């Protein structure tokens, strides 16, 4: 098992997940904000997803980290993999009230660069075409649509990340 790192950016701290993060995570998964992730999810399903996000550290050497701004947990960023993903995927979510400040972009860049630094050969983001806010984050990170990539679900957009892509 790889121990999850703690990464610092200008405004954010990306830190390992803890059981105490679950209530806020479950609240998001129970809300309309999880619609693009296949939600809403009840507590049992949310716990499964929460553990699934952490499992990458045991199975692959990468996984999800919680994102903190000024000591407040504002969301999560993670690299997902496994049989359900054609390629390693960079994903992000922000808790209610923390959007619009560039946190997802800043956290996503940090984990992307860490991932490529660990030797990840490729990194993509799978996206529901209606999820414009998340597509804008991918574009701000410098990712580009890759129409040739295999989508996770039919109809998904696939954004391809490159190491150190400028804003």
């Amino acid at each position: 098992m790889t121990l999850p790192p703690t990464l610092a950016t200008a405004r954010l701290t990306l830190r390992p997940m803890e059981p105490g993060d679950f209530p806020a995570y479950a609240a998001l998964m129970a809300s309309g904000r999880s619609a693009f992730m296949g939600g809403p999810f009840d507590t049992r399903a949310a716990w499964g997803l929460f553990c699934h996000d952490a499992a990458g550290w045991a199975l692959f050497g990468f996984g999800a980290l919680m994102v903190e701004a000024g000591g407040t947990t504002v969301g999560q960023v993670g690299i997902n993999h496994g049989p359900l993903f054609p390629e390693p995927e960079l994903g992000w979510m922000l808790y209610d009230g923390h959007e619009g400040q560039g946190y997802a972009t800043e956290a996503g860049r940090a984990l992307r660069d860490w991932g490529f630094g660990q030797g990840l050969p490729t990194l993509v983001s799978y996206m529901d075409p209606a999820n414009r806010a998340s597509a804008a984050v991918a574009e701000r990170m410098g990712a580009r649509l890759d129409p040739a990539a295999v989508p996770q679900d039919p109809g998904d957009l696939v954004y391809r990340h490159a190491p150190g892509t400028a804003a």
Partner: protein
Amino acid sequence: MIPTLSTARLTLRAPRLADFEHRAAFYASDRSVWEDGPLDRAQAWRVFASDVGQWPLMGYGPFSVDHRGGYVGEVGIYHAADFPEPELGWFVTPEAEGKGIAAEAARAVMVWARANFGWEQLVNYIDPGNARSIALGLRLGGRICDRPGACPTDVVIEHDLRGLA
């Protein structure tokens, strides 16, 4: 970190991606009927990954079990959101059944849990139709008790860890 435990015949080690194929086969079969199965591959992955994800979060979880260098099952501590407390659980491949492998691995996990966490008891949650697993729980020295289960119909078997380690 995920420890490696050794018994007379077995090695209990960190789960690996390749171990998932055995769990997927189990969930695709009728053997999984007592474990909310059958499940398709995507559902089976979610169960496997969420079990393994307990390790970085809680410091306990499922061990994959090797016998003579080959995978024979999974035994460890499971703690889903709707479990009142951590649960001792086991799974062996069809080829490994009837050899005492689950019992041998479960004893090692109980000793490890006692030594690491100081727990006094550890429970099994078992579907009342799963006679084989109930028999194993009792053979390990457990007693059927009235503690709450993961669901109301579960048979709950309590193991006293206080004499261990």
